[in-house]
């Protein structure tokens, strides 16, 4: 290599500027779509650190695992009720007439390379998805993260939860095995129970009377396209709102209503969260490898006159099954019509109330407290005893009816009469939420009296100003953490933060660019 070529190379490199190729690409993109300013803000975006903030990440990443494994399954699964003879490698089913859907599902499990792993990963990821979503929702609820300005994002979250439950139920039904087919039968009967339009709803959705041949293709396209598409859009909206409104954070040193304290998007958060994506996928893979789930080849293809013992839906539907079991047989008949209240009340009205209560909670709480302020700092659950008690009672009720979905198994296991277990759950349905609510309320009040709970280390805050400069501030310790006299601190009913009306409010501190000011009583 001559000196001349080396010199030209160096010149070419120098011509690119101090940031090399990256700088060049940034320049070209910025010329066309203007990425420099927004991109820098994005890289510098601050994420507050708290373990509970990763619950939503688990949900997001299990959704990605679901899409990846779902695409694999869709390559082999055929949503058809046409009867075919099973000729795959699972000997006990040889020469049996089964539906094409069941045939392909069993073939995925035994004859497609990696198919069983993908099927079990998909099922486990679905359980992780719904489970983490519910726990994430509980976190949002108990810390008050749903308050203004985030009511809309909370609503989107609940809507996604509802869609996900239906998505899971439909996906569970696609293999057309004996257990899921029974679940579909129950779903059909629940639709039938709706007054006035029930039988029309059932035949229209199923495309005929049960078990219609039209239903599997319909549920398939809903499962693989329509619901995922809606979820995809809602996840986009959820994350856009999250970025726009910025993350909430717990109170602590240097953390105020007007700032976010944490680690930067790039590279810290990105590395941690990408690693987390890998670990969520790893959890699905390990569960899929070592924990058998839904062994459809043992159940057999669905036949309407066959059934097995201990018929239970997937766990996220279990709570509706539990209410169906403990409901008395109150069928209404009048004027030549029938209203099957024993089905309609527990399977339609009860879930309707549960989700409406969840959806309306921000409005209910705002009406009750009169609090219409912007909140960026999270509540500690003990500081809002009434909300915490209400939420605990709500979840206790759902756990109770979930338990009621295994009355027969419990009666068997504990050698009790089924009648005793049934009546126990009928009573617990009313008693458990009340007791849990009262006990939670009391525990919250007790915890408020304990001095120094939640004491934190003092640290130095690095401040990022709007022009990208940094400065450090030593934060004041939390008042709770200063060991002076052990006076129990009265907890304020609420902190009033008045919105800036016209930008001329002279009392607004200069350090508050969010347009809110804190009023101390």
């Amino acid at each position, binding site marked *: 290599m001559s000196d001349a070529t080396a010199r030209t190379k160096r010149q070419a490199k120098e011509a690119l500027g101090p940031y090399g190729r990256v700088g060049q690409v940034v320049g070209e993109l910025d010329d066309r779509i203007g990425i420099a300013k927004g991109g820098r803000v994005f890289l510098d975006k601050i994420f507050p650190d708290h373990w509970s903030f990763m619950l939503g990440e688990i949900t997001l990443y299990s959704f990605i695992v679901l899409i990846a494994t779902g695409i694999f399954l869709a390559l082999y699964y055929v949503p058809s009720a046409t009867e075919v003879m099973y000729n795959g490698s699972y000997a006990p089913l040889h020469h049996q007439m089964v539906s094409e859907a069941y045939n392909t599902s069993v073939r995925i499990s035994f004859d497609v390379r990696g198919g069983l792993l993908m099927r079990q990963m998909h099922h486990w990821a679905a359980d992780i998805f719904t489970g983490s979503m519910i726990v994430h929702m509980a976190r949002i609820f108990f810390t008050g993260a749903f308050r203004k300005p985030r009511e809309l994002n909370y609503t989107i979250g609940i809507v996604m939860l509802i869609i996900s439950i239906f998505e899971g139920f439909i996906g569970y039904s696609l293999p057309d095995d004996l257990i899921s087919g029974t679940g579909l039968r129950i779903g059909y009967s629940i639709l039938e129970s709706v007054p006035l339009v029930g039988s029309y709803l059932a035949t229209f959705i199923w495309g005929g009377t049960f078990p219609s041949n039209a239903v599997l293709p319909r549920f398939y396209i809903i499962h693989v396209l329509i619901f995922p598409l809606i979820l995809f859009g809602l996840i986009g909206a959820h994350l856009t709102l999250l970025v726009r*409104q910025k993350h909430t954070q717990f109170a602590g040193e240097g953390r105020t209503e007007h700032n976010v304290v944490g680690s930067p998007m790039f590279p810290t958060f990105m590395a941690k969260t990408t690693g987390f994506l890998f670990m969520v996928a790893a959890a699905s893979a*390990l569960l899929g490898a070592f924990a058998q789930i839904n062994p459809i080849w043992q159940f057999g293809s669905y036949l309407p006159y066959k059934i097995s013992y201990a018929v239970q839906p997937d766990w996220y539907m279990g709570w509706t099954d539990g209410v169906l079991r403990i409901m008395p047989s109150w069928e209404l008949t009048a004027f030549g019509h029938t209203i099957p209240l024993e089905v309609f009340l527990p399977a339609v009205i009860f879930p309707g109330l549960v989700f409406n209560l969840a959806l309306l909670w921000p409005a209910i709480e705002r009406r009750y407290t009169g609090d219409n302020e912007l909140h960026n700092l999270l509540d500690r659950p003990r500081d809002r005893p009434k909300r915490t008690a209400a939420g605990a009672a709500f979840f206790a009720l759902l756990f109770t009816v979930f338990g009621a979905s295994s009355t027969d198994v419990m009666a068997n296991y504990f050698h009790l009469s089924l009648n005793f277990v049934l009546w126990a759950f009928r009573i617990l349905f009313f008693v458990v939420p009340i007791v849990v609510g009262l006990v939670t309320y009391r525990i919250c009040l007790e915890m408020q009296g304990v001095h120094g709970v939640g004491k934190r280390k003092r640290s130095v805050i690095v401040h990022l100003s709007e022009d990208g400069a940094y400065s450090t501030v030593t934060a004041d310790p939390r008042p709770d953490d200063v060991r002076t006299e052990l006076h129990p601190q009265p907890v304020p009913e609420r902190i009033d933060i008045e919105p800036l009306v016209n930008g001329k409010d002279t009392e607004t501190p200069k350090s508050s660019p969010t347009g809110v000011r804190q009023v101390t009583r």
Partner: protein
Amino acid sequence: MSDTEHEPSRTRVPMPIATLNDPHLGDAAKNPGRVEGIIAVVFVLGIIMMAAFGAAYWQNWNPWILGGTLGAGLFLLGFGLTAWGKYLMPQGPFVEERHVLAGSTAERNALSAALVERSTVVVKRRRLLGGLFAAGSGIFGIVAIFPLLRSLGPVPGTSFEKTDWRRGIRLVDSNGRPIHKDTLRAGNIVTVFPEGHQDDIQGQSMDQTVLIRVSYEAFTTIKGRETWAPEGYVAYSKMCTHLGCPVGLYEQQLQLLVCPCHQSMFDVTNGAVPQFGPAPRPLPQLPLGINSDGYLVAQSDYHEAVGPGFWERTTT
């Protein structure tokens, strides 16, 4: 604020370069070299596991090895990356101001004014056009939704009330074998279908019937059903009146039919009246007869709708 005021701790450089100057942009770990070594080992193990997964897939080894290697590989790579982020990347804590999302009163008023004034002008000046367009859109909405819904499926009609059972049709089991009056002994049970419908999935759902031979002593004949149970043969719809599951469990000692879904129990010896559980009604009884060849036949269809309740269901 000038730069000199906060000189010691202030850096006016982008974050990646600032690691050189600002301690808060440095490694979080106290001994970064050691941590780096550990993470490198984790990554190497992850690479090995991923390669092993490839080999397992290539060789079509069993799902345990496939999932074990894939899971281990993903976990090691993810764990390493997370640890890298946690211990070897800037932790701060950094602070970022929240920006006001709300605009000023003037901006809000400008938007409201634009919306109100322009729409008022447009609609008020052209009431006829607005009305016509609204009418057109409304009609489109109705005609678009209504037929779409309607073509999804057939109207229910009598499909929830009628089964394939007819006068004189023979009872056959799931293999199509007719039931002779000597086939069952007292206490035996078999699932039957109308002959010719045993393989049709629709028939299997609506027509499914349990045939039980009971002993005369225990049997209570219900008024109006005196001729429905010849030779101790009694037939009930197999569809549970609660949610339509097959009433598939037969408790011979107690003469109960039990639904495994929600544990409704029906008394076989007394018109299948529910004894327990959420089922609201007895299982409909199929009137039976015996034809000249000694085979069991139906006398007619069920006298009421089988299966769960629905709005149009009339009571008998």
